């Protein structure tokens, strides 16, 4: 992802500017885990401070404490010099603390202005409010039409609505939780401009992320968390990604080994003119997709979310069967009408985007979750009855081979951090020795250490002769692991290019639907305007 040069960090003079928020010795103990341990932190007016850490390092817990969602077990919090106990998010907002969550909390069937009105105290007049939204959005470069419905907005636009909702309450501290995970490179630039303008006006910003490049480009200062503790503070502009990664994960940033692909493998997945109309009125129709994925190669599909990725994955996995057989061919079998279970028996494995609730059953143990897809393949069923010892043994293998940090095969899936659950699911699929692996967002929200590990496992699987299809919104990731790359935009698939023969910039342009020979190039709007499913 192209990153602008680091800002000439306007290091606030500690003596001149009062600290807006100070935390001292904050701790949060849950029954099974110490989420925060003796955390100290200060953020000043006009400062953009990164909270950097792996998944499970305690970033989210800390932000929830500041925003009044949870209460700390111990420690003190000072707001503009006065000690406070934040009782609730409403209390936090009344103090001037705003938060934009990673997962949006908007009502899809309501308009922008209606959504904003719901978050404000009292019953604001909608016309007046719409006017204020227009003003704020013009001032901070966040163009949004207050009369539009949320479902018609792209992910980037939805995030703008969330930010505007915060800004209308004149926050003096803004907390951003992993805000760029859903944005195109262009949208990230826009967001950073907005945040810088806010900081220039004196707003303090806490920016949670694990993306080192972004933090170096945006943040003045950084507090690094590991295992619930502060492991260091730094000025990102003066650090390298490697040195920050060391603070964050305690060791060197791992790199993936990627050799040249084997040539001439058989076709394991073929899309032969796949078209499919989406049932969802806000979904994307797939139009005439052609793609071959061979044994021993990794093919990546890039694109802004909501351009048909979900629909394509469902059609390939069989969760959404087709009316015809031929458009989806798996290991030489025309599989368009087969159920997901039948496709798995042909040798396909599938890692979905949502881990909890789709890739895994949250309340069930890891052993039970092993049964979810591996029951037949790993001999866990005999005469219709379950062989729990086999399920436990297989779950144990996933845990051991993929370094899943958890309480063992009996641990509930939802007790794992996102990254560890992702490792478990990827492990469960890979250890079944598939002939074709289809992977959606393999490292979404996963920390750098786990992400590198998962990517390496996918590459190793390819080296063993498996065909791999990866659909991801992270271009860096696709370029790191893929042999060939295509782009999906508005339900159409671009030509496939060898990864070495194209660049992140070219693919970024293609993500707007503008690839050579694109018949719809004329009417394709900019990528950020694409409706999100």
């Amino acid at each position: 992802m192209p990153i602008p040069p680091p800002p000439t960090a306007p290091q606030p003079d500690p003596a001149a500017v009062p600290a807006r928020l100070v935390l001292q010795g904050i701790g949060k103990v849950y029954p099974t885990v110490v989420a925060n341990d003796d955390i100290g932190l200060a953020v000043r007016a006009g400062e953009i401070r990164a909270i950097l850490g792996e998944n499970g390092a305690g970033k989210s817990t800390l932000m929830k404490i500041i925003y009044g969602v949870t209460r700390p077990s111990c420690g003190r919090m000072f707001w503009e010099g006065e000690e406070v106990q934040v009782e609730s998010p409403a209390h936090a907002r009344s103090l001037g603390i705003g938060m934009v969550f990673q997962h949006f909390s908007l009502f899809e069937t309501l308009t922008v202005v209606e959504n904003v009105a719901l978050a404000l105290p009292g019953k604001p007049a909608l016309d007046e409010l719409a006017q204020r939204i227009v003003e704020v959005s013009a001032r901070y470069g966040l163009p949004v039409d207050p009369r539009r419905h949320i479902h018609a907005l792209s992910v980037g636009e939805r995030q703008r609505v969330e930010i505007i909702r915060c800004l209308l309450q004149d926050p003096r501290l803004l907390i951003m939780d992993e805000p760029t995970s859903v944005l195109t490179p262009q949208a990230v630039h826009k967001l950073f401009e907005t945040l810088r303008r806010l900081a220039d006006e004196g707003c303090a910003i806490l920016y949670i992320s694990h993306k080192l490049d972004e933090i170096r480009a945006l943040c003045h200062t950084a507090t690094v968390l590991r295992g619930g503790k502060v492991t260091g503070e730094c000025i990102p502009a003066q650090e390298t990604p490697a040195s920050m990664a060391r603070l964050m994960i305690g060791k060197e940033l791992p790199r993936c080994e990627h050799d040249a692909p084997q040539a001439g493998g058989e076709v394991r997945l073929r899309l032969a003119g796949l078209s499919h109309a989406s049932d969802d009125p806000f979904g994307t129709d797939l139009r005439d997709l052609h793609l071959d994925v061979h044994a021993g190669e990794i093919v990546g599909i890039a694109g802004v979310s909501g351009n048909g990725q979900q629909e394509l994955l469902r059609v390939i996995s069989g969760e959404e069967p087709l009316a015809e057989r031929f458009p989806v061919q798996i290991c030489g079998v025309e599989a368009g009408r087969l159920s997901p279970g039948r496709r798995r028996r042909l040798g396909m494995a599938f890692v979905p985007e949502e881990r909890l609730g789709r890739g895994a059953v949250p309340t069930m143990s890891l052993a039970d979750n092993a049964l979810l897809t591996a029951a037949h393949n790993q001999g866990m069923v005999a005469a219709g009855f379950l062989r729990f010892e086999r399920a436990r043994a297989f779950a144990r293998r996933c845990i051991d081979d993929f370094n899943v940090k958890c309480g063992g095969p009996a641990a509930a899936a939802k007790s794992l951090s996102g990254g560890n659950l992702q490792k478990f699911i990827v492990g469960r699929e890979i250890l079944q020795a598939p002939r074709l692996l289809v992977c959606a967002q393999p490292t979404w929200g996963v920390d750098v250490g786990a992400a590198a590990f998962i990517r390496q496992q996918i590459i190793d699987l390819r080296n063993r002769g498996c065909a791999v299809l990866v659909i991801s919104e992270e271009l860096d990731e696709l370029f790191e692991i893929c042999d060939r790359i295509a782009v999906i935009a508005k339900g159409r698939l671009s030509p496939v290019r060898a990864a070495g023969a194209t660049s992140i910039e070219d693919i970024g342009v293609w993500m707007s639907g503008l690839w050579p020979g694109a018949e719809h190039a004329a009417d394709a709007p900019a990528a950020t305007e694409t409706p999100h499913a």
Partner: protein
Amino acid sequence: MLELEARAEPSRLMSWASPLLAVALMLVGGLVVFAALGKDPVEGFRVFFLNPVKDLYALSELLLKATPLMLCAIGLAIGFRANVWNIGAEGQFMLGAVAATGVALYFGDSESALVLPAMVLAGAAGGAAWAAIPALLRTRFNANEILVSLMLVYVAQLFVSWLVFGPWKDPDGFNFPQTRMFAEAATLPIVIEGTRLHFGFAIALAALVAGYAFMNRSHAGFRMRVAGVAADAARYAGFSAARMIWLGLLLGGAAAGLAGMGEVAGPMGQLTDKVASGYGFAAIIVAFVGRLNALGILLASLLMALLYIGGEQAQQYLNLPNSISMVFQGMLLFFLLGADVFIHYRLRLRRRGA
């Protein structure tokens, strides 16, 4: 000020303590009801809750009442776990009774040992067939199974009435709406001499064991549990939603049909228009009080049977209307739903002002 705070994990302790809490609150509520009706609460408690367990015969009556509840509830629990909401066990119970009665009447005075097994099969098939209607409508036309199965209860009731007032009416029965009494070979054997407790109780216990094995040990049961808690995960794993709807409804219907067969071939010995008397609906409460779990359902069905018999006792000795047992059932479900909040939340005392 009291406030509810979400627990990090649902409490296992509370999920078992909540039915006990509900029972305790129901008892307290019952004493208040007795007092409000001008009865001595202590006497009321004795008649309602102790009379039904005072001797072997009373206990056998309790088990007799619990038998159909157990059967219906274990069948319903299988579907409920997969979010298949069969509310029509009452109707499936009646159709099971009708099918078994048809077999019994067909064989007449035959002494064949095959009559009873045939009635068992017919009862299960009758209940399952009635449940197949909502399953078909749900999988074909996406018609809500709650409404369809419930409405079919009233159809079943009218069908039974038509039979016993019409073609199946006992010609020597002084025009009462009932069939002929079944022959010896079409009646379930008594398990304990001198009581009315019949072999259906053993069938019900076996059904509990089978239900446990199905839900907790079989792959099909596992698939249904997954579908119940995470429909997207079930779709991802390739578990067919239609199959689960069929399985959930057919098993629930078959169990309810068996219970209906047990009533006509057991204590009643004939089919009347009052055959179901609310077992199918009460079983819904039993299934939930029993946490959709075989052991829990065993205990909950005994409790519910106690309420039925206690109500009869209260009618007899306290001059209270029989609907008193409905009041107790209602209180039990009400308090259970209330107490269940504490599985996911805890109560915190909070100082005023914030």
